[in-house]
């Protein structure tokens, strides 16, 4: 999808999340092909006194699909949710280290989480369309972001086409979203996410509640979306990570000396390398099925 008239086009000027000056003047950290959109430096996420995951340092590259894999409880979803401050909604959750978005610390005091989520959208594990019509699901984000001026019908069509759902729903836009199949619901959730034109889409195991055919459609869609969006996907399905992603981060959970479980990032590299020639023994054990 292209939005030639989009004033928010971020290829030239990094978006501002706060009223203050961004940490780096435009151009200093931006514009190069290799400049990460999101960069994590020694990130740890805490729930109260419990450190759920630690030691996460990795970049998220523009227009690429970055996968996070690992066994249950390794903190991959927790890290994903720290990228658009969804963890704010959980009482007692906090992040240490630096999560930067175009050079701006997402957890700086003057950052507005609403603005963060405008630019970094999210698709969830279980399809969660609103109990409204298909049309209203797509326009919801437009309305709350005051983007529904004028050509709303066009924007809805664009978003649904972008999510490869238009042909299936164009004749029943006013019917309930809950009447759709699980795979269609998930594509609707992708449509309502791209309707507000984020730069980054976070996907938290988006296919775990879907059958293989619906999963295949979503994976095809992800390839298309990567042309316009930067995608981070958490998946417990290693084949899926191998199929769709450019780069892969492998997380695992380990007991510390006191016997407490913490998740941590083990290895981050090009997906090809992770799956054929991992540097770490734990990664190799996991992808060859000896663990997890």
């Amino acid at each position: 999808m292209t939005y030639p008239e989009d004033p928010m086009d971020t290829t030239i000027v990094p978006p501002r999340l706060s009223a203050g000056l961004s940490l780096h003047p435009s151009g200093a950290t931006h514009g190069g092909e290799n400049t990460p959109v999101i960069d994590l430096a020694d990130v740890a996420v805490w729930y109260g006194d419990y450190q759920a995951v630690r030691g996460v340092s990795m970049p998220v590259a523009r227009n690429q699909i970055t996968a996070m894999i690992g066994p249950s409880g390794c903190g991959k979803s927790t890290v994903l949710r720290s990228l658009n401050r969804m963890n704010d909604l959980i009482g007692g959750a906090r992040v240490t280290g630096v999560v930067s978005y175009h050079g701006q610390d997402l957890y700086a005091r003057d950052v507005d989480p609403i603005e963060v989520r405008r630019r970094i959208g999210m698709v969830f594990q279980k399809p969660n369309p609103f109990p409204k019509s298909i049309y209203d699901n797509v326009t919801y984000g437009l309305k709350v972001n005051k983007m529904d001026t004028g050509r709303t019908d066009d924007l809805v069509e664009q978003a649904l086409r972008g999510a490869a759902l238009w042909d299936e729903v164009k004749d029943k836009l006013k019917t309930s979203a809950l009447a759709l199949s699980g795979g269609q619901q998930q594509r609707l959730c992708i449509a309502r996410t791209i309707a507000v034109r984020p730069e980054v889409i976070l996907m938290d195991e988006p296919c775990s509640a879907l059958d293989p055919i619906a999963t295949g459609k979503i994976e095809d869609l992800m390839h298309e979306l990567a042309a316009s969006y930067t995608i981070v996907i958490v998946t417990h399905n290693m084949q899926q990570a191998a199929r769709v992603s450019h780069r892969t981060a492998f997380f695992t959970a380990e007991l510390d000396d006191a016997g407490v479980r913490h998740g941590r990032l083990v290895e981050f590299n090009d997906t090809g390398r992770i799956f054929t020639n991992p540097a770490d023994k734990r990664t190799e054990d996991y992808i060859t099925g000896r663990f997890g």
Partner: protein
Amino acid sequence: MTSTSQKVAGIPAAPSVRRGRPRLGEKAIEALLVLAAIVSVATTVGIVISLAVPTVEFFGTVSLGEFVTETLWTPLFAEKHYGVLPLLVATLIVTAIAVTIAIPVGLGSAIYLSEYAGNRTRAFLKPILEILAGIPTVVYGFFALLAVNPWLRDIWPSQTKPEFQNMLVAGIAMGLMIVPTVASLAEDAMTAVPRSLREGAYALASTKMQVSTRVVLPAALSGIVAAIVLGISRALGETMIVTIAAGLKTDGIIVNPIDGAATMTAYIAGAGQGDLPVDSLDYLTIFAVGSTLFLFTLALNALSIRMVRRFREVYE
């Protein structure tokens, strides 16, 4: 279990699944549960019958036309008129004032408790709210008469001050009385909305208020309407507050809320104090008014069910 008696030498007996001793306890419990269900149904039927029979008798003497068009209700006076409109209008005015207060305050509290308050704040406030719902209505009645009304007369801008007993204070007190009911039930309905819907809305850059009003409120609508209807039903049926604070005046339709007027319930309470001879026409008026009130509540419930079907957003 009779397997031992069937054992044949050399061949192991098949395990028996045949009926053994009847489980008497189970039967007894079922009977008790049926009895409990019958008690409440039978009571309702009994009440409807005991309302309907005297009501029919009443309309044998007074015409239905007079009952619904006459503008005076003076069955206990020398010159008798049997127009229920004054009672009806007073009931509607007091209820409307109560609802005007209870819906915004009740829903506001519910939204605060469900969407804004932290766990600790909610754990502290919700029980207090529910205790408020348990304050006896007679207390609210005197609260209206002795606390709200003097204050109202103090701040009243015009020269004609509210009467000693008036519909406005009764409505205010009644509104405050049903706030906890509305708030508590609406909060339950909103809390039941799945977290995943809220997360979906937050992920689309919604503010808290947008999540509350555009996602949670519509999804919880059926529960919220039920909360409001229960509140209105309590207001319609409330007797003590209106008897104390709105008075028993019934001679003519009174629409100014700062004047006193008897509601249907207040008339019933006032007239039914035991000095009316049984089966006299005066006595039958109580039942005619009671039936009218009953029909009103019934109609309200039916209306709200239709409204909910029409507007609610069903999640799963």
